[in-house]
């Protein structure tokens, strides 16, 4: 075992140890600690919150896309910003209703709003379909890349992904429902220092500065730093930013975190500050761009290796180990949360809907049993997917954003959308996304009569429009018998 792999293994051991500790003693609620910020300096709190947005998606995926695609990667900087604008109104409305009706999960919210247990099950299944093959898979993929690269090629990426899946499973099984807040703190501090260091040092070392780096890239690949004329072009950018901004809070874990806030003003205040944290992503982009002329030739999903490949070229193995360890934590912390959420949603919101008499204990035990199975499924997808990390998450967003119309309508007073419309809309949206994904086609190929300017529009947005249309039409068509069935 080389020094880089050893350092990564030590960090994994520490994370698991902290997980065990968290289970034993009282664990600290990171939300209260970071957001409240009492006793900690503003700078420290800022750093913690900034670290939160770094997952494998941004760390390896963001740099990978900057390396492989160039300008289109900037969508990552844009969508969170618009999501926070929406959050100013969206989150307080969800929070108020959830508090009044004592709700605990995303599924509960739809069940209560539409007075339909079946809709809750549908929402849960769509959420798990969105999470496992994309969001969870990309964390495993990241873990696999890190372990494989840090082994300097002695461990294949499939075996490395298996090690990653096993690590996340063990971590979840040991630390239970509440993972250690301290692991998250270590992760935030490490990944932030690593990203800022790499983002400033690497362009300086190889090009003499950030500005010089961009000029040299432009000289070698003219136009690469902007959006291309086809493919990931301007219509793609606009539709993708919109899709991901609307879907931002539709994930079960982010939706669930809304409920934990103390009051609704927290959301409005966060909408002012959170956009600024996005700027930390710049450093990750810089690393990906620095790799373009230094470690050329990575194609397909290998672009996600760019940050680590460049690190190996630039640094000694021990420093590569530390960078890999930071990467490990960015995959382990969100990965464990996603795995846990998926298992809990399937057990609490799907299984219990069919077996209402099941005891709390039985539901919890089922959630635990599901963890290794879901991890195995995710590993299978990881090994069989040739997609980059960014494309994996975009696929997840195409699914999860289908929940948005039913949610938004439910927040209006005198909502005319009923459970039939909501369910039909979600199902149509999901079918369209599935078809386009499985058939590996584009909107331009399905609807050849569209002007070429719309050929590359994100399929998720097209599915969302169809979803919206079906939601409205079915609600109006079923109005009469909906009213008879449940007088409101």
């Amino acid at each position, binding site marked *: 075992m080389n020094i880089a792999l050893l350092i990564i293994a030590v960090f994994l051991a520490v994370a698991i140890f902290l997980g065990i500790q968290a289970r034993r003693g009282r664990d600290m609620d990171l939300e209260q600690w970071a957001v409240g910020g009492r006793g900690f300096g503003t700078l420290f709190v800022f750093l913690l919150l900034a670290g939160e947005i770094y997952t494998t998606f941004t760390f390896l995926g963001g740099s990978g896309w900057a390396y492989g695609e160039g300008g289109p990667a900037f969508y990552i*900087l844009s969508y969170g910003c*618009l999501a926070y*604008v929406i959050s*100013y109104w969206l989150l307080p409305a969800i929070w108020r209703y959830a508090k009044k009706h004592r709700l605990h999960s995303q599924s509960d919210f739809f069940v209560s709003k539409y007075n339909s247990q079946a809709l809750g099950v549908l929402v849960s299944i769509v959420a798990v379909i969105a999470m496992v093959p994309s969001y969870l898979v990309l964390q495993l993929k990241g873990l696999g890349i890190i372990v494989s690269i840090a082994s300097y090629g002695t461990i294949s990426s499939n075996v490395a992904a298996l090690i990653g899946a096993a690590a996340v499973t063990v971590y979840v099984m040991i630390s239970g429902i509440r993972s250690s807040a301290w692991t998250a703190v270590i992760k935030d501090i490490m990944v932030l220092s690593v990203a800022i260091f790499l983002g400033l040092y690497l362009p300086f070392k190889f090009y003499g500065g950030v500005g010089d780096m961009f*000029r040299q890239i432009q000289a070698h690949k003219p136009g690469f*730093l902007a959006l291309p004329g086809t493919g990931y072009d301007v219509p793609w950018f606009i539709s993708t*930013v919109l899709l991901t901004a609307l879907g931002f809070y539709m994930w079960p874990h982010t939706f669930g975190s809304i409920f934990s806030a103390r009051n609704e003003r927290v959301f409005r205040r966060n909408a*002012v500050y959170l*956009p600024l944290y996005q700027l930390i992503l*710049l450093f990750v982009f810089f690393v990906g761009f620095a790799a373009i002329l230094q470690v050329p030739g990575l194609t397909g999903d290998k672009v996600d290796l760019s940050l680590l490949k460049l690190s190996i070229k630039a640094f000694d193995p021990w420093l590569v180990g530390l960078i890999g360890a930071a990467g490990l934590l960015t995959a382990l912390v969100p990965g464990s949360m996603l795995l846990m959420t998926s298992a809990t949603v399937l057990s609490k919101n799907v299984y219990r809907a069919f077996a209402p008499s099941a005891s709390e204990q039985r539901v919890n035990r089922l959630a635990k049993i599901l963890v290794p199975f879901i991890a195995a499924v995710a590993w299978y997808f990881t090994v069989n997917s040739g997609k980059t990390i960014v494309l994996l998450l975009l696929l997840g967003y195409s699914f999860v954003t289908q929940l948005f119309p039913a949610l938004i309508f439910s927040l209006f007073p005198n909502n005319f959308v009923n459970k039939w419309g909501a369910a039909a809309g979600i199902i149509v949206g999901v079918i369209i996304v599935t078809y386009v994904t499985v058939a590996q086609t584009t909107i331009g190929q399905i609807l050849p009569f569209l002007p070429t300017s719309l050929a590359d529009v994100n399929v998720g947005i097209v599915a969302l429009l169809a979803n919206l249309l079906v939601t409205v039409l079915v609600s109006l068509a079923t109005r009469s018998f909906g009213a008879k069935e449940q007088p409101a």
Partner: protein
Amino acid sequence: MKPVYLLAVVPFLGILGGIVFANRVEPYVFGLPFILFWIVLWVILTSAIMAIIYRLDPANREERQ
């Protein structure tokens, strides 16, 4: 619907609408390609706009008391 809420449309226009005109590498601003500078600028402006909305929104003033 309070009029100040309409300000929230501006970041959408700046990022989604502006990209049509800002999709270019040159000129460089602060060393950044123009498209990247444009998005960074709008991230900062979005924060400023949300601060104005927050300040003028009576919902926040009532709760502070």
